């Protein structure tokens, strides 16, 4: 049962619009800081090219993808290479996920029972796509550590699910750099407090005028040799996109617009 926390899904597919000055405002609550990080990495809309490398015990593969996003509700991801997989696409609209399979020219809606299943064979789940931006709603956020680590001023936030929240993690801990609000890592624990997976952010790059982590790697705790890495090659923010774009018809188009 793995679920990425919204902020990271946001980082993944929806880099941010609201370019807040990376300055720490006085009297901010942990919740406000996390929310600001979240918004910073998301955006009203974005378009990007990324490479997803998946390494498992049995195989490694690399998929080149193009991603589009609009707010927290819409995302479209289309595989452009290798040729065998090209055209395979995922559409997310609110809580629902569809996959398009070009080989059989069919679209499949991911049923609720399979939201925890792997997304495109990676260590991300379908649910990771869906549960964006709920972090500050679903979790109580406290500061676990504040100070210097390896010469960098950081916050360590400890997120515990609110009693009624329907989330799979028992606890999430993540570190954010104070200077530029960049996340550096996240650790995800189950209800019994066992580490389930870790996420690392690196290669902070400026796309347009915005600084984002261009590489993120998720590793399952029980299989430390396995990982999925996403690298952004290119990323644009505030591109003109409307909800109409995120339709089943766009999902099935084989050419990238």
């Amino acid at each position, binding site marked *: 049962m793995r679920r990425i926390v919204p902020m990271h899904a946001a980082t993944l597919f929806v880099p941010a619009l609201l370019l807040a000055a990376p300055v720490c405002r006085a009297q901010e609550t942990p919740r406000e800081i996390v929310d600001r990080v979240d918004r910073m990495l998301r955006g009203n809309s974005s378009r990007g090219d990324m490479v997803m490398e998946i390494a498992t*015990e049995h*195989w490694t593969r690399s998929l080149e993808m193009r991603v589009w996003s609009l707010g927290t509700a819409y995302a479209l991801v289309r595989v452009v290479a290798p040729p065998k997989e090209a055209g395979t696409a995922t559409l997310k609209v609110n809580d629902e996920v569809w996959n398009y399979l070009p080989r059989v020219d*069919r679209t*499949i809606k991911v049923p609720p*029972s399979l939201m925890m299943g792997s997304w495109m064979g990676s260590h991300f789940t379908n649910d990771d796509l869906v549960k964006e931006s709920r972090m500050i709603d679903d979790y109580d956020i406290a500061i676990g550590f504040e100070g210097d680590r390896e010469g960098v001023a950081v916050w360590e936030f400890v997120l515990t699910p609110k009693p009624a929240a329907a989330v799979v993690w028992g606890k999430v801990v993540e570190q954010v750099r104070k200077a530029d609000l960049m996340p550096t890592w996240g650790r995800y624990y189950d209800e019994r407090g066992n580490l389930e997976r870790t996420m690392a952010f690196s290669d902070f790059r400026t796309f347009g005028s915005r600084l984002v982590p261009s590489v993120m790697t998720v590793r399952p705790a029980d299989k430390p040799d396995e990982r999925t890495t996403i690298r952004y090659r290119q990323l644009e923010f505030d591109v003109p996109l409307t909800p109409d774009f995120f339709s089943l018809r766009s999902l099935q188009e084989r050419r990238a617009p």
Partner: protein
Amino acid sequence: MIQGVWWRIAWRNLWRNRRRTLITASALAVGFFGAVLMVALDDGIAAEMVDNGTGVLTGQVQLHAREWRKERSLYATIGGDSGTDVAALLARVRAVSGVAAAAPRVWAGGLLSAGDRTEGVVLMGADFALERGVSRIFESFIAGGAPRERSKELAIGAELARKLAVRTGDVVVVVAPAADGSMGNDLFRISGIYRTGLQDLDGAFAAMPIATLQSLLALGPGRVHEVAVGLADPWAAAAAARATVASLGAAGHRDLEVAPWTVFSPQMNEYVALIKASNGLVVAIVFLFAIFGVANTSLMGTYERRREFAVVRALGVGPGGIARTVVYESVALGLLGLAAGAVITAPVMVWWHHTPLNLAWLFGDLEVAGALVRPVLRIEYGADGPILGAVGLLVTAVLAALYPAVRAARVPPADALAGR
């Protein structure tokens, strides 16, 4: 010699009150009949459960790669990544004594999608011709039939067909993560819809030709996850598994796990063990009723014969001798009851075994411990019932005689003879 005399006396004494003896022996005989029949019915329920539990899909013995049962990983095929010579393996398994049939299988998890409906299912790749001797699932089609060899056809359960709103001839998408990391996907035609009555099989299970599934999963033809074995006698599964291990070990297959149903269906095994354990209790209860009746008769007999015992004592026999006569009489009575019991039980057993009582008009099929149980009261022959019954009966006879024997041994000769 002396022993023989006491037995003879006991036997003669039995027939001094013929009617009472016959009635008491009948009580024991009926007790024996009841005990044996109850045990046989219990065994019948257990056998019905095991026949169906192992006969619908699993078979009675399964061969896997050692690590298979832990995670059911796609990669845990027999013979590892290089696979195995499936035909040779099957031939070797079939040659094991007691093995009736063997069939190779490939397993995977996947999605079935039709229109806007999608369901997660267990996918089975099967050789439908070979499955005939191992599983009955593909004999329960309510529409259509099994997929043709190497075709892109799919058999699904009635409940799954309902959930996907499909019927035979319709096309569905099958998606399954393949061994090379890609997402195997293809279109399949529904060749048939079956109904087993088992929730998992009817609602979340689909079967296709083994070669088709191997190709969908990017597995070579030598890679199978399981060989399922059908036995003539399900109760011989453990022995057949041992024989298979020996035979395969000799052929160099050492990385295999050969599991009888008692291992791969522990739940069913426990249920059967519970039934067997309850047999002893059933017999104990039946004879608990009988013991008081026999004790009563025996006690009355000793009161009537106070004078006789006094005379015997007066002639020099010790109290132990008197007690022994009473116990011997009871044992002789027990043997008589046992003989009568065997005579009345045997024909009923044979008749019932061949014409089981079908209560289908009263109950539908039941699912017990993951196995389908027909509402048929059948009885199974077995050594358990008669042995437990006979032991129970003789123990009853001896226990029932103990108190009367003690009373008889304590008869004071002078007082009894004087009529006091």
